C-alpha cells in the first residue's frame, strides 16, 4: 500500500504521473481507494487524481478506459440495496469516475453506440435503485450518490451515440427517481445536478414539445394522484413533494438563466411554469 505522502507529492507536482511508475498499477491502486471511508483516500487522492489523469492529461488509451469501465460498472451496482452502510462510497464513486470517462468520451469519441447504451442502462438502473442517498457524511465526507449519478447521466446525455429514444428513457429515469417512495429530502444540490441532466437533454434539441410536455406532466400526475386522507403530516409524501418541487424550480431557473435554449424547449418552459403553480403555496 502506497502511503499518503506518495500521493500528496503527486498532487503537489500538479498531478503529473511520476516517472518510474506504471500508470496501470497506480490506477488500480487509486480505483481501490474509491470505496474507502477515508475521504482523503477516496476523494482527495482517488477521485482528484483520476479526474486529472482522465480529463486533463488524457493518459488513458481507449482500451485502458474500457478496462476501467469493466472494473467500475459492476462495482457501482453489486452492493445495491445496502442502506446506511459504507458500501455506498464504492458504488457512488464508481458512478463518479464513470462520469469522467463519459466526459472523456465526449472529447475523443471512443465508445460505440452499444457500449454507450450499456453504460446508460447501468446508470439508469443505479439511479433508481440506490437507496442510500446520504450526501455529506460527518467524519467521512461525500457519498452523494444521487449527484454523482446525475453527473454520469449528464455526460451521457451529451453523447452523440444516444438517440432520442435513449434520451427519453433517461428523462423517464429521472422522473422515476423523483416519484419513488422515500423519506429522504435532497438538500445538497441534487436538484440542481438532476436539472443539469435535463438541460443537457434539452440542448440536444432532439425531443419534441409533445415528448417534453408528457414527461413534465408526470410530476403533475403524481401530485394529483395523491389522496390527502386527512391533515396528518406524511413524511413520505412531503419528501417526494419537496424533492419534485426543488427539482422543477432548479430546472426552471436554469432555463431562465441559460444563454439560449432550443425552440421546442421554450414551449416546454411554459408548461413547466404551469406545473410549478401546483408546487407553490
Amino acid at each position, binding site marked *: 500500500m502506497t502511503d499518503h505522502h506518495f500521493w500528496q507529492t503527486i498532487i503537489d507536482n500538479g498531478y503529473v504521473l511520476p516517472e518510474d511508475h506504471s500508470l496501470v498499477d497506480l490506477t488500480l491502486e487509486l480505483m481501490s481507494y474509491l470505496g474507502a471511508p477515508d475521504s482523503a483516500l477516496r476523494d482527495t487522492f482517488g477521485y482528484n487524481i483520476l479526474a486529472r489523469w482522465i480529463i486533463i492529461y488524457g493518459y488513458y488509451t481507449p482500451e485502458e478506459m474500457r478496462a476501467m469501465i469493466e472494473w467500475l460498472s459492476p462495482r457501482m451496482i453489486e452492493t445495491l440495496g445496502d442502506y446506511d452502510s459504507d458500501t455506498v462510497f464504492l458504488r457512488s464513486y464508481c458512478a463518479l469516475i464513470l462520469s469522467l470517462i463519459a466526459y472523456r468520451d465526449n472529447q475523443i469519441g471512443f465508445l460505440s453506440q452499444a457500449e454507450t447504451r450499456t453504460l446508460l442502462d447501468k446508470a439508469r438502473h443505479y439511479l433508481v435503485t440506490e437507496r442510500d442517498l446520504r450526501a*455529506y457524511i460527518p467524519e467521512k465526507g461525500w457519498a452523494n450518490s444521487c449527484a454523482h449519478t446525475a453527473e454520469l447521466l449528464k455526460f451521457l446525455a451529451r453523447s452523440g451515440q444516444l438517440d432520442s429514444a435513449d434520451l427519453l428513457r433517461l428523462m423517464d429515469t429521472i422522473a422515476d427517481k423523483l416519484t419513488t417512495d422515500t423519506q429522504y429530502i435532497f438538500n445538497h444540490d441534487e436538484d440542481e445536478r438532476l436539472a443539469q441532466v435535463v438541460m443537457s437533454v434539452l440542448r440536444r434539441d432532439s425531443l419534441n414539445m409533445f415528448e417534453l410536455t408528457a414527461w413534465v406532466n408526470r410530476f403533475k400526475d403524481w401530485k394529483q394522484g395523491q389522496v390527502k386522507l386527512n391533515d396528518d403530516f406524511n413524511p413520505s409524501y412531503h419528501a417526494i413533494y419537496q424533492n419534485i418541487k426543488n427539482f422543477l424550480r432548479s430546472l426552471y431557473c436554469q432555463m*431562465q438563466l441559460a444563454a439560449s435554449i432550443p425552440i421546442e424547449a421554450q414551449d416546454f418552459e411554459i408548461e413547466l411554469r404551469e406545473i410549478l403553480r401546483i408546487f407553490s403555496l
Partner: protein
Amino acid sequence: MDKAFWQAVVDADYALPTGYSVGQLTPELLGFLGSADVEVRDPFGYTILAQWMIRDGHYAPEDLRAMRDQLLLNLQAGLGENGTDRVFLRSFSMVILSLIVYRDNQIDFFRADEVRTLLEHTLRYFAEEKDLRGFVPNKGWAHSCAHTADMFKFLGRSLKTQTSDLERILDSITNKLTLLGDYVYIHSEDERLVSAVIEVLKRGVLSADVWMVWLERFALWKQITTFGDFSVNVHAPWLNCKNFLRSLYFRLTLTPDLPAPAESLGLKTLDIIKNFGL
C-alpha cells in the same frame, strides 16, 4: 387530562360543552400548547383555541390581552435551547399570538403601541430561537420558524405597523436566513416567510429602493461568505437563502395583482438566484 372530553369537543365541531364556560376551559387549553404529546398540543390546544378565537369569537378584548401576556412569557421558556421539548410551548405560544393579531385585524381592539410591542417581542424571539426543527418524529410539529412567519404575516397586514416596522420585519427575515448554522429548513418555512413578505409588499408602503436594498443583502451575503471545503454551517444558510429566494421568485411572478414593484423585484430576485446556483 381527559382526552375523551376534548375529543368530544372536536367531534362536536368545537361547540362549547354544556355546563362549561370558555373562561373555565381556556387555561387548560393554553397548558396544552407545551405538551409533547402529538395528540394533545395540535388537535386540542392549537385547534380548539383557534376555532374559539377566530371562528366563534368567544374571547373579549380583555381575555385576549390576558392570554397575550401569558403567551409572551411562554416565549422565554428555555429560549436558546435546542432539541428539547420546551420548543413546543414557545412555538405554539407564537402561533396563538399570531392568531390574536389576526383577531385584532378582524375586530380592531389593540392600540397601535400594543401591536408594536408584539412586534418587538416577535423580532427578539425570532432572533434568539435556536430550535428550528419543523416536524419532530413522534411528537409532531415544532415549526418555530413557520409560526413566527405567520406572526409576521399578520403583523404585516396590520395597519398599526408602520413603514419602519415593516422594514424591520424584512431585515429580521434576512438575518435569520443568513445566520451561520447547521439547520436546513425542509418544512416549507421558506414559503411561510415568503407569505409574510408578500403581505408586507401588499401594504404598498415600502419604496422600490427599500425593496432592492433588502434583496441586495442576500447577494452581498453570498459575496462576502467564504465557501471553501464543505461546511454544513455555511451550506445550510446558503441553501436556506436559495430556497427562500426561489419561493419568493415564484410567488412574485405567479401571484396576481401585486403592487407595482413586484415585477422588477421578481427580475432582481432571479438575478440574485443566479449567484446561488451551481
